[in-house]
């Protein structure tokens, strides 16, 4: 009888396993947990076939589960391979601790190590026991849906991408099968009662008719409604989804511009540094130019590059090891929002910070998929390499230590840009001279710095307009243009976004505010790595706080590496390419940076782990049903625990009390059982059948309480109780009935009696 339900419960639990699949890197984590679930189910089947008491069942299941775990993980220490010993238990405990530590330490997906598989097997084994208890012992099949829901929340809450549709379907199907089987069995049991014959299986069909469309809706609605589709619940069509954890963020250029134009000029961070001349603080690196915008390719939060006590990935391309270490203690203001990339001096090599942060080995950006640097304080150690000007000047134009994508120039650019670049670098020998020439071309005075560049007419190429016509812009345009032109000149380049050193408050304390936001090009030189250049006019009318680094000054023979240098240098390098002469021909595939306000094609914000909307709707749906659920649960527990005559009488009596309270009638603890029966018979016009049932229940309770040997109840008290509940509710009117179901007053009463008043009180 209960066998079918047991099998269905086991199937439903197995069906829930795929829900956890996205949490693991390895594809083969599941066999051992599945065996554990099966073992628990088979134990239940066997024990019920042998008619063992239901109370002992969890014990048997626990023993089997323990033997299985011992056999799989600690057979060396165990007797006969499966019988636990002190040694094997110690091994298991160690595995559990290690597994928990791994779960704590790593974001999903996670590698299925043996300790992790142990923890998962144990959890799923216990889960299967719980489902078995709820479904088979307590006969509350529907309640197991809550347990499955809890399992569903695991991937939803820790995994960025949510769960897959197929896994959801499998889990839902398992649950539906369970409901159907349970309903069928229940109908058969009812059919055995007089007056309730027939209709076996009708419940099952009814249930399916409701459940199947509901499941279909659950799958379809999120896919159709745009607001839900990209959310975490069904992260199925996320474009930037990689095969690993990905992270997206608001386009750095958009936040840059917002910062520069901020009227409030809020503080962003403060830092103390060991150097007199602190470097820029870099946040993002934009490495791809699509012809219009600089964007950031997706970065991976890989375990290997998790930020720990140890050093970050090595600085790319640097061969020198003569470096001066600089330490910077950065405190980000607590109100900073969505700052999931850390502002860092380049190149950061060691970071002491709390939370889960990951480094990108290529750019040395540090980020956290779930984190926010707001309010954090961290210490950064960054080397400052001594660059010998001669070496730099002699750097090879053949770059090999860097990805070729840093040289990508999209097709279809305005041809004048290429010509311009060639003319600027024509006289330069070597990559470094070319880079300096480009930088000087921007800073020699022909450009005007303004945070409000003129609007670009519709259809025109913003970059060409910036280079050839307006020549007005701010750091974003300068950096974007120079990085592109450097690529055209054969130098690997990218755009960095972050902050200038800010303002020195006193001693070694510096303050960075929103208006210190900045963008600059980073150029790569063989043997020297990525070096910062500064094409944006920095002094006077230029960007405050910006400065030209030593290695980027034009004249090793006597250049002035002061922030004011560019203007002086400008006099030296003349405009060998008179751009105004060239006619601007707008090209549709032109490039330029000013479109930065628009977000990139990638989702602009990271989906929240669990949408508040989902939580709220769940609460709205579940909360009103909670009292009814609790009431039902209490009834089931009461009957399930009642074995002896006395206990069954007691259960029937307490049920009567609760039903009386639920239907709004009074309950006086000073009334004896037959006193209650007498009163109820008078207050509610009960049918003769209900009266008889009431009398039986009262007599059974009376006998159980006061007789030396409780008499056996004459009939099935559970049936009497059911009949009586129906009669009481029928007499309560429609509102009373609804209140009895949804807001059962009896829930306010715990313990054996509503209120105990001592006679002596």
């Amino acid at each position, binding site marked *: 009888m209960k066998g079918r339900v047991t099998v269905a419960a086991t199937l439903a639990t197995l069906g829930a396993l795929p829900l956890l699949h996205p949490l693991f890197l390895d594809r083969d984590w599941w066999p051992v947990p599945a065996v554990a679930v099966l073992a628990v189910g088979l134990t239940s089947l066997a024990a019920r076939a042998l008619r063992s008491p239901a109370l002992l069942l969890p014990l048997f299941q626990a023993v089997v589960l323990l033997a299985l775990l011992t056999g799989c993980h600690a057979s060396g220490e165990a007797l006969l391979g499966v019988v636990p010993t002190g040694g094997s238990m110690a091994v298991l405990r160690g595995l559990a601790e290690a597994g928990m530590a791994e779960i704590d330490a790593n974001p999903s997906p996670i590698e299925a190590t043996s300790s992790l598989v142990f923890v998962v097997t144990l959890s799923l084994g216990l889960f299967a026991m719980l489902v078995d208890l709820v479904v088979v012992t307590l006969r509350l099949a529907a309640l197991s849906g809550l347990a499955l829901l809890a399992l569903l929340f695991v991937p939803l809450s820790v995994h960025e991408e949510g769960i897959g549709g197929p896994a959801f379907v499998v889990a839902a199907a398992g649950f539906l099968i369970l409901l159907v089987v349970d309903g069928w069995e229940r109908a058969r049991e009812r059919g055995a009662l007089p007056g309730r014959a027939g209709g076996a299986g009708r419940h099952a069909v009814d249930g399916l008719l409701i459940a199947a469309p509901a499941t279909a809706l659950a799958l379809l609605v999120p896919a159709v409604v745009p607001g839900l589709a990209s959310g975490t619940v069904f992260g199925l069509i996320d474009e930037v989804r990689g095969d690993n954890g990905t992270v997206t963020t608001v386009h750095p250029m958009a936040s840059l511009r917002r910062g520069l134009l901020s009227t409030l000029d809020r503080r962003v961070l403060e830092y103390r540094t060991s150097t007199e001349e602190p470097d820029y603080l870099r946040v993002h690196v934009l490495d791809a130019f699509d012809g219009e915008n600089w964007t950031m390719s997706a970065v991976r939060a890989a375990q290997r590059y998790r930020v720990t006590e140890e050093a970050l990935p090595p600085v790319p391309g640097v061969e020198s090891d003569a470096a001066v270490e600089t330490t910077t203690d950065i405190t980000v203001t607590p109100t900073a929002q969505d700052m999931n990339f850390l502002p860092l001096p380049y190149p950061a090599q060691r970071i002491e910070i709390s939370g889960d942060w990951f480094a990108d080995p290529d750019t040395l950006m540090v980020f956290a998929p779930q984190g926010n640097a707001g309010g954090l304080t961290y210490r950064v150690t960054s080397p400052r390499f001594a660059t010998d000007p001669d070496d730099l000047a002699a750097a090879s134009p053949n770059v090999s230590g860097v990805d070729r994508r840093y040289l990508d120039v999209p097709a279809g650019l305005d041809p004048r840009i290429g010509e311009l670049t060639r003319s600027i670098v024509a006289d330069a020998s070597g990559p470094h001279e070319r880079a300096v020439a480009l930088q000087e071309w921007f800073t020699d005075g022909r450009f005007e710095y303004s945070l409000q560049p003129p609007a670009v007419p519709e259809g025109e190429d913003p970059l060409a307009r910036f280079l050839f016509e307006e020549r007005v812009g701010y750091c974003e345009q300068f950096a974007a243009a120079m990085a592109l032109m450097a690529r055209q000149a054969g130098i690997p380049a990218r755009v960095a976004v972050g902050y200038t050193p800010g303002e020195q408050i006193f001693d070694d304390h510096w303050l960075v505010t929103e208006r210190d936001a900045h963008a600059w090009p980073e150029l790569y030189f063989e043997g020297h790595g990525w070096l910062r250049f500064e094409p944006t006019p920095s002094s006077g009318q230029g960007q405050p706080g910006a400065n030209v680094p030593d290695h980027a000054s034009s004249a090793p023979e006597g250049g002035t590496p002061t922030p004011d240098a560019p203007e002086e240098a400008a006099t030296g390098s003349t405009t060998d390419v008179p751009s105004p002469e060239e006619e601007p021909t707008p090209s549709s595939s032109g490039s330029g940076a000013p479109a930065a306000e628009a977000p990139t094609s990638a989702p602009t914000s990271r989906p929240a782990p669990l949408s508040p909307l989902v939580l709220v709707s769940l609460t709205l749906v579940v909360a009103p049903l909670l009292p009814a659920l609790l009431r039902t649960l209490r009834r089931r527990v009461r009957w399930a625990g009642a074995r002896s005559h006395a206990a069954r009488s007691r259960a029937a009596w307490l049920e009567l009390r609760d039903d009386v309270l639920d239907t709004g009638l009074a309950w006086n603890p*000073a*009334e*004896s059982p037959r*006193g209650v*029966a007498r009163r109820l018979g008078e207050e509610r016009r009960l049918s003769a059948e209900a009266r008889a049932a009431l009398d039986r229940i*009262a007599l059974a309770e009376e*006998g159980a309480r006061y*007789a030396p040997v409780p*008499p056996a109840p004459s009939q099935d008290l559970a049936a009497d109780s059911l009949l009586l509940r129906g009669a009481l509710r029928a007499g309560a009117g429609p509102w009373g009935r609804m209140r009895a179901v949804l807001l059962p007053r009896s829930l306010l009463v715990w313990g*054996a009696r509503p209120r105990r008043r001592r006679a002596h009180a």
Partner: protein
Amino acid sequence: MSLDTRLTGRDDEAVHDVGAVLDTADRIRTAVETVIEGKTEVVRIALTVLLAEGHLLIEDIPGVGKTMLAKALARSIDCSVSRIQFTPDLLPGDITGVNAYHQERHEFEFVPGPVFANIVVGDEINRASPKTQSALLECMEESQVSVDGETRELERPFMVVATQNPVDMEGTYPLPEAQRDRFMARVAIGYPSPQAELDMIDTHGSRSPLAGLEPVAKAADVQNMIDRVRAIHVSPSVRRYAVDLVSATRSSPALRLGASPRATLHLVRAARAYAALEARSYVIPDDLQALAVPVLSHRLLPSTEARIEGLPVEQVVRDLVARIPVPD
């Protein structure tokens, strides 16, 4: 009533035992009810007191059949019965008996008083002097008589059925609290219903109804019933309930004097008999509830406030019963 018969819990083993009690008791009840019509509850209490080895106090105005009830109960059992009419000049020896000098044998010989009987009907007990009253009360409590230093056992069963007029009637010595406490229960008969009164004229008009009353049970039967009643089960929780009920009277603000521990004993003993009369082998709180007023109220004194409010003691007891939780 119908509910009570339907609800009667019959326990296979106990039914056999209790069944015999029920048969005899039913016969007595039927016999008494031919004389006192329409007073089922009063008759039931009287029977209960008989089976519980207690003494009954019948208090009511004259002429409603107090003595008739006492006599009918006595007459329906085939046992020795004596009747004492209490008057102010009655002496203790008139009750207990005296040592009289035997002229021929030249020695004192004990002449037993009317108290040496199975059922003693004490009419208008509150008209006797306190000294005489107390002589009877010693017999009630001890089931023995002490005359001139010699103690004599009374017969079994022994029951005193005393009647008294309400205490505010003329020419009465109210029973002191200590003496009222010796009675297991007090009942009031009350006026008959008009129909019962009409019937009474018809049937009682010509001859005394007692004349036709034949004994329906022997004294040994009654003693046998009493022994069985002692075996009725009282669960610990029900005992506790009895204690709760009685001690509640001691803390009630409406009462100046609460019930004594003897009241608790009487209550439980009476409840056993009451259960047996319902053919039940165990006591339930309902028995105690039904007996609380007759067993407790005559032992209680209302507080001044309750007296001023006109709150009868019986009502106070009923309120307590409705308030004390029954045991689980």
